[in-house]
């Protein structure tokens, strides 16, 4: 055929070379399908994060740590941090304990009730943010039905929905369903035989939980705690809706520095944001370390 003719040979090798070239390109063709995803993920997730990190070190167009020293000089911003940490810690702690009690009792009920309650917690975990704040105002606000009931019984104390105690109640409310959903699968690790064996050996229920139950659950408890904590410290909608942005929390400070009516300082907001992410990073690292330790122990 034509292959024997020298004139065509040249074009053929060129063709086969081209073919080899395109087939090598073809090997990378699937990557093309990743590009749109990478572009969008970069534009809306990576780039904003990188902007925050870089600009937190820029003040008046110069590289400096001025923004950070401004944070540590401002008692107002530091108060925002301490309020956020306080509420995030206690709401996660109390919420997790209540969720653990709920889940451990839930496992003793029959499957129909169990499924119904799991479905309900699933649903109520979506009841958060602005709608939840409004619901709380209706029942626990100054003239809320529960407030009136409790006041009538004289057990209200100095509870005020728009203060620290009210916010804590609101945060615990949205932590319980989330905690329950996170812990529910973990309780599968508790085998009934272990409990029965401990009872046979004469241990009390209390001793069983201290010596067997909690150590088995501790990685799940710690892991869930960090998710609840991150969820609480990053929360913005519920506190904003409840107090109109008047309660001093770190997310409220960040938002007011970029979208408030006056004194816009995006780079200061970036520095607060970076500190917030650093804080979350440190807590996650400590937590991972505790989890690793509890697995080995």
């Amino acid at each position, binding site marked *: 055929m034509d292959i024997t003719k020298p004139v065509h040979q040249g074009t053929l090798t060129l063709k086969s070379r081209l073919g080899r070239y395109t087939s090598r390109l073809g090997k990378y063709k*699937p*990557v093309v*399908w*990743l590009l*749109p*995803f990478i572009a*969008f*993920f970069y534009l*809306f*997730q*990576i*780039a*904003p*994060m990188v*902007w*925050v990190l870089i600009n937190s070190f820029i003040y008046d167009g110069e590289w400096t740590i001025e923004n950070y020293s401004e944070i540590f000089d401002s008692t107002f911003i530091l108060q925002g941090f301490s309020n956020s940490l306080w509420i995030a810690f206690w709401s996660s702690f109390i919420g997790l304990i209540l969720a653990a*009690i709920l889940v451990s*009792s*839930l496992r*003793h*009920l029959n499957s129909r*009730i169990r499924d119904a309650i799991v*479905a*309900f917690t*699933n*649903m*109520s975990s*979506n*009841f*958060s*943010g*602005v*709608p*939840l704040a*409004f*619901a*709380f105002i*209706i*029942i626990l606000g100054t*003239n809320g*039905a529960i407030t*009136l*009931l409790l006041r009538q019984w004289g057990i209200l104390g100095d509870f005020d929905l728009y203060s620290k105690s009210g916010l804590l109640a609101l945060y615990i409310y949205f932590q*319980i*369903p989330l905690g329950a959903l996170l812990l529910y699968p973990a309780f599968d690790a508790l085998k009934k035989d272990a409990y029965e064996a401990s009872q046979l050996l004469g241990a009390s229920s209390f001793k069983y939980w201290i010596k067997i139950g909690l150590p088995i659950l501790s990685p799940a408890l710690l892991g869930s705690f960090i998710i609840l904590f*991150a969820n609480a*410290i*990053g929360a*913005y*909608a519920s506190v*904003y*809706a409840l107090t109109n942005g008047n309660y001093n929390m770190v*997310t409220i400070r960040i*938002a007011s520095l*970029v*979208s408030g009516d006056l004194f816009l300082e*995006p780079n200061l907001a970036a520095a607060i*944001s970076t500190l*917030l*992410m650093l804080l979350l990073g440190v807590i996650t690292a400590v937590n991972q370390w505790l989890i690793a330790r509890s697995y080995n122990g």
Partner: protein
Amino acid sequence: MDNNNLFIHKSVVYGLSGILFMPILATFIYSFSSSWGATILPDGFTIKWYTQLLTDPRFLEAFMRSLFICISSLLLAMILVLPMIFVIFYYYPTLDKVMNILILLPFAVPPVVSSVGLLELYADSSVQLIGTPWILIGTYFTIALPFMYRAISNSFSTINIRDLVDAAHLLGASTTKAYLLIILPNLKKGLLASTFLSFSFLLGEFVFANILVGTRYETLQIYLYNMRQTSGHFTSALVMTYFVFIFVCTWLATHFSKGNK
């Protein structure tokens, strides 16, 4: 002893669920009450708050805007994620580990922090993004991403994608054809479950909507917030309508994820 224990467990479960249920129930009753002032029980019942809400054009517009944003961002997420997961699982399975870390970012970086960067980065963009629904569609894609990736990659690990695609190749189908006709139908349930779950999540999103867009494109959550000064009964009716919607979406999500087993 056992009966006694069962009683304790039942009271714990019903007690705690009861507390969780209380705000929902109170909002429900409030939305049907004609007035409920400084008394423990309402004075009378009415549906006027619902008729007022459902005939308010501002509400209907906000609702439509929310639906538009949520549906568009879920479509965008599907268009971006479906080919991406297939390419990762079929050609570069090692990338799955990288992806599992990347999809944590939307959780690890609070929306307030992301919005600081977004606001400054796109404030002077040549195509206006801030204050328009387009920036929300982009950011909502990142919110939906972890749910979608997890659910779809779970479906992928239950089917043997190499054998399926190889079999299709032997029968003369191209990879694209094999993907569209064989792989995609297998992902339907995981995809639907994660779509409804993300949908109920996105419908409740307030932070990005408030900081990046605000009243310039009033979504359902922003409308709800702006209505805070009006009658509490009216906002209750609004919250309940929203909650029924969320309820249906979560129910559909659990329905589809159950069918997946």
